[in-house]
């Protein structure tokens, strides 16, 4: 699951840096904006069946690749 998410992120952000640095701040660095954030939510739902509503979490809670992986994992385990 972890590699799958990182692959998806790399594809959406168009940058492999997200695979190398899992703690990179996606919003600060401009890797993710409102549009790519949307694409990430759709990709997560399509690939894992995990629905994260756009307003459900604070953006900071999905601010790094690691946090995204953890959010998906905790929802899968529910």
């Amino acid at each position, binding site marked *: 699951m972890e590699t799958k998410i990182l692959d998806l992120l790399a594809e959406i952000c168009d940058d492999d840096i997200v695979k190398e640095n899992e703690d990179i701040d996606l919003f600060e660095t*401009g890797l993710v*904006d*409102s*549009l790519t*954030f*949307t*694409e990430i*939510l*759709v990709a997560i739902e399509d690939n894992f069946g995990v*629905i994260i*509503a*756009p*307003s*459900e979490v604070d953006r900071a809670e999905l601010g790094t690749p690691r946090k995204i992986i953890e959010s998906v994992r905790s929802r899968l385990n529910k």
Partner: protein
Amino acid sequence: MSFFSGYRFFVCLFILLIPAVVIGLMGKKLRYYRLLLTAFFIWWVYGGSPSQLLYLLIYAAGSVLLVKSYLFLRTKYNRNRYIYGCAVASALLPLVIYKVSGLWGGNIFGFLGISYICFRVIQTVIETYDGVIKEINEVTFISFILFFPTLSSGPIDRSRRFAEDDETALSPAEYRELLGSGLYKLVLGMFYKIVCSAVFYTVLTHFFENRYTPLYVAGYAYVYGFYMFFDFAGYSAMAVGTSYILGIRMPDNFNKPFLSVDMTDFWNRWHITLSSWFRDFIFTRFMMDSIRKKRFSDRLVGASVGLMLNMTVMGIWHGLEAHYIVYGIYHGVLLSVTEVYRKKSSFYRKNKNKAWYRMLSWFVTLNLVMLGFLIFSGHLKAVLHAAAAKLN
């Protein structure tokens, strides 16, 4: 009578906040005192116009009924899009009636704060549909939609965030800290609104009205822009400060908007709770739907349509007059251009972090923002009339 204006309001507010401070410093829950104050201020502010009071109460009672019955239906029928659509439409209907009736000079269902209260109710319905909201406490919900500091003009809080604050009692130390920043914001807001905005307003009306040379029009845009900022940021700061003193960590509405380096940055700093509401409940949802339905072959085209839609709706929300709608479209175009430019321009990628580029970008942004305010002010109509008169 309105919120946060006139010395009688402030005297009364400060006196009534004293018991809140005592309760807070003792580490007790402020929940019921907040409700009591909300009831008092609604009675006081709306008391002068019984029809407004009546509409407000009908809308509030109707909203409770709506969110409770929608929650019931959501549990029973899951994600049914028709029921969902009906629920959102019902929350929106009074606002639409009010705005449309205004076109013919009417004022059906108009009451102070109607534009803002709708956001809170619709957000609750949408998040119920999402499955994020699983229970709704009537008292907390009423407290949330009618919370007096933010009732008439925001900031627009979110129900789950509010409920969390509403139901917890802060420790005396936590409350002390919140009280400190609350007092600071309240006083700063008063200074902004009562001193700064009044100064800019006086300058505006004395020196820039009825003068239509290009330099005066440009001056009007700037002075009006600063007036708007101090007026609205001042109001918001007073509302946030009062909320803090009452134990609610209301989100901020402004973050140094005139330092923005591009238009996207501007909307993250100006009327933040409004733009993030639109982002979360219109833009993102439209984009997710578009991606699923493969509505656009090019992602940038999709994003541009999404941004145009988002900002045009925001313009319409401000009012159905032409200048508000043009204002929305204007910002939609600017955001779309910014998005395409950021994604496509190698010049941008190469220079975006350089000091000279940021200075230039800031300067361009500031002027685009001020032009936006000029559109928003409705002043351009007079300018066009003056220009036409000169040509004839």
